[in-house]
C-alpha cells in the first residue's frame, strides 16, 4: 500500500470523528460534513508531500475543509438550491421551544451566512489571525473583520455576551489602533 494511503487511512481511523465534527461546525450539516471531509482528504493527499504524517496531515485536512466549503459556496449555488432538502420539514409545535433551542452554539452558527460562519470557526476554533483567515479564504482582511464583527454580533444575540470575543478580536487584528473597545457593557 502506498505511503500516502497508509497515512490517510491512519488519519481517518484515528481522527474521523474529530474531522467530521469540525466539518459539521463549519457547514452545519452532517451530510455536507461527510462530503467536505472526503473532498479535503482528496485535496490533501493529491499532492506529493514527502514525509507527511497522519498527525501533520490533519492540519492540512482541516484547512482544506474550510477552503472547500467556501469554494463551494463561492463558486456554485447548487448547495443553496437543495439545502432545504436537508432540513427537517416537520413543523415545530413548540414555538418558544424552537427559539430556545436556537440558543445553542451550533444552532446559532447555523444562522450565520457561510462566509461569516467560516470566519468565526477559523478565528475561534482554529485561532487564526485575520490575515491568516483572509489568506485561507481568499478574501480581504477588511472583509474578514466585517464578517467576524457581524458573526459575533449575531452569535451574541443568540448566546449572550461572549467571554473571549474581546480578547480574540483584539488578537485577531494586529493593528492595535483598530481594536474595538471592551464590549462588556451590555
Amino acid at each position, binding site marked *: 500500500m502506498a505511503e500516502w494511503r497508509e497515512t490517510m487511512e491512519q488519519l481517518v481511523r484515528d481522527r474521523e470523528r474529530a474531522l467530521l*465534527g469540525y466539518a459539521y*461546525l463549519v457547514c452545519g450539516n452532517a451530510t455536507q460534513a461527510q462530503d467536505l471531509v*472526503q*473532498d479535503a482528504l482528496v485535496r490533501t493527499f493529491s499532492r*506529493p508531500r*514527502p514525509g507527511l504524517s497522519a498527525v501533520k496531515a490533519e492540519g492540512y485536512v482541516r484547512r482544506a475543509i474550510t477552503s472547500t466549503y467556501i469554494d463551494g459556496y463561492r463558486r456554485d449555488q447548487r448547495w443553496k438550491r437543495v439545502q*432545504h432538502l436537508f432540513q427537517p*420539514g416537520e413543523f415545530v409545535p413548540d414555538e*418558544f421551544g424552537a427559539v430556545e433551542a436556537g440558543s445553542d452554539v451550533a444552532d446559532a452558527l447555523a444562522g450565520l451566512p457561510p462566509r461569516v460562519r467560516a470566519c468565526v470557526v477559523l478565528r475561534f476554533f482554529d485561532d487564526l489571525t485575520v490575515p491568516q483567515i483572509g*489568506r485561507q479564504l481568499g478574501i480581504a482582511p477588511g472583509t474578514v473583520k466585517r464578517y467576524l464583527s457581524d458573526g459575533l454580533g449575531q452569535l451574541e444575540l443568540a448566546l449572550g455576551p461572549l467571554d473571549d470575543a474581546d480578547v480574540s478580536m483584539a488578537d485577531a487584528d494586529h493593528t492595535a489602533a483598530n481594536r474595538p473597545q471592551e464590549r462588556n457593557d451590555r
Partner: protein
Amino acid sequence: MTKLSDALRGAADRAPVGELSVSTDVAARRVTRQRGLRGAANGLVGIGAVTVLAVGIIAPTFGDVGAEDAGADRAQAESGGGDGAAGFAEDSAESTMINSCGAFRDVTGWGDSTVDLDTRIEGVDPDAGEITEFEGGQSIDLDVIITALEDVDLSTSGPQVSILWEGMLVGEFLISDTALDQAVLDQGSDLVNETQVSLSNCWDGEPLPAGTYELVVAQHFYPTADADSPSAAPLPEPSAVPGFDPDAPVSSGDGAVDDPAVSGPADGEAIEPMPEPLPAPPMNDFQVVAPSVPLVIAGDVPEDPFGEYLPQPVELPDNYLTPQVARDLYQESVTTDAWDMAEGTQRWVLQSSAGEEYTEEAWLRGFYGCPYDGTQGVDFPAESSRMDLFEVDATIPGGISVSYGWVVDDNPRVDLTVTNTSDYALPGFYGQPSAELYLVRDGRVVAEGYPSQLRPYINDEILAGDGDGAIEPYVIDLGLLESGASLQGEYLWRDVSGCWSESGGQRPLEAGTYTLLTAQGIYVTDGVEYGYTEDAEAQARMTEDAGASEGGMDTMIAPAPVQSDYVELRAWTSLGEVNVTTSNAP
C-alpha cells in the same frame, strides 16, 4: 458568560456525525486519479539517447480504481465473476459524479520546465498531411516522449492524456507506473513511454462516437528529493490550533476528551496569537504539455454526441429575473436623492456585480449598518434606486422596552411578508424573509436587531392561497418567488444590539423614537449550472504563485464552467417608527 472557543469545541464534539463515516477507498481512488499513480507495472530498461521504459494498456479513468484495486478488479472481471462486474458498474456510476468528464479544460503547462514533451500516435505521420481515421473503442498506440533540455533528475506522476471534443473533456487516461516515477536524463536525451489508449469516453467507457477530437498529453514533474536541493526544504506545517501538539499522541478515535485539536486553553488562560505560517517552500515542480494531436473517429457524426452525459441546464421560467435585467431596472430608477426613510418607502442598493474590479473598499459603497470598528457612522449610500421588485410588509410593535440589550416586558412578535410586485420570478427565496431590523437616528444606524424565527423551517408551511391576496406557493426548487407570490415569516424580537463607538465600546440604546428599517438581500445569477473539474493544477499553481497558500492548502478543485453573470442587491424598507424605552437597572 459563554466562551465562544470552548462552545465551538464542545459543539464539534457533540456534532451529530456519529452515524457517518468517511470512505477511504473512495477518497483513495480520487487521490490516485489526481496523482496519476494507477496502471500496470512495467520494467525499467535504462536511460539512453532513446529509452523505452514502459508498455502498458491504459484504461479510461472511469473506474478511478487505485493501483492495488485495479488489478483485483480486473482479475475479477476477467474471471467473469459477478462481483467484478458489479464493482465496475459501481465505479462507473461514481465517477460520473466526481470525475471531470464534461469539463471544459484548458490543459496548460506551468513552472520552469526542464523537459519537452511530445506525443506520437502509431500509424499517424504528422508530416504526411493525411488524416488517419480510427474506430470508436479502438486502442491506439501512443508514445509519450520526454526530452531533457538539461541534465535532469525528476520524479513524475506519469502522463495524463486528455481527449477533448470541442474543448470538452470526453476521455481521460492516466498513465502511471511506480517503476516510472523517475526521469534521470542527460541533456538532449529522450525517454519514451509506449502506451495504449482506448478511444472510449470517460463517463461509462462507451466507444467515442464519430467526430474530430483533440488528444492532449500533460505531465507533471518535480525534482527528486535531495537533501542538498532547495526542493527538499520542509513543507510548511499546517497552522497549529490552540493546544494542538503535532507530536502528541493522537486519540483513539472518539475525538472528544483527549482530542488535542479540540482542547482549548484553560479558563482564564490567554489565547496565544497564531504565529505567521512558514513561507512556502520553493516550488520547482512544473507541468509540461505536448502539442495537441488531432484525432478522427470514422463514421457518421451524431448531432449531440455527449448530450446524454451532460447535466441538463437549469430550466428557468421565461420571466426569470436575469442579472442584466436587474441591473437595468436598478439603473432605470437610480437616484442620488437622499432617502427620507418615510414609512413604506424603499430603496435598493447595488452591493456587487459581475465584472466589477475587486477592491478592499468596494463593499463600503453599498454598506449601511453598524460599522465594525466604530470609528465613524455610515450614512445611507449616496446612490440607490427606487426600483420595484418586491414590497415588504411588516407587523411591528409600536414600542419596545430594552434592558442591557435585551427586549424585556414580553418579546414582541414581528411578522414579515415579502410580496413579489414585479413581473419577474425572483431567485433565492428560501424558507422565510430575512429578519434584519435596523434602528436609525439622524440617518445613521445606531442599533441592529435580528428577531428569532418562530418556525425555522417554514418550507412546508407555505400555503396555497385561494385568491384575494392570500399567500401563494413559490417554486421551491430554485427558490423562486413568482410574480405576485409572497413569502412570510414570523419572529420574536428578543434583543437589540447597539453599534460600536470608537471610544466607548458598544453603545447602549438610548430611549427615544427611531426609524425602523428592514433589509432583504437578493442575489441574482444567470442560472448557469456549475460543474467541478478536479484537475485545476494550473489554478493551484496560480494560487501558490500568488502566495495565497502559505501554510495552507492548494486549490485542487476548480469550477467549470465559471459563473458568467451575477448581481447582488439589497432592498431597504422603512417600517415606520418604533419607540424605545430603556431600563438598565437590574
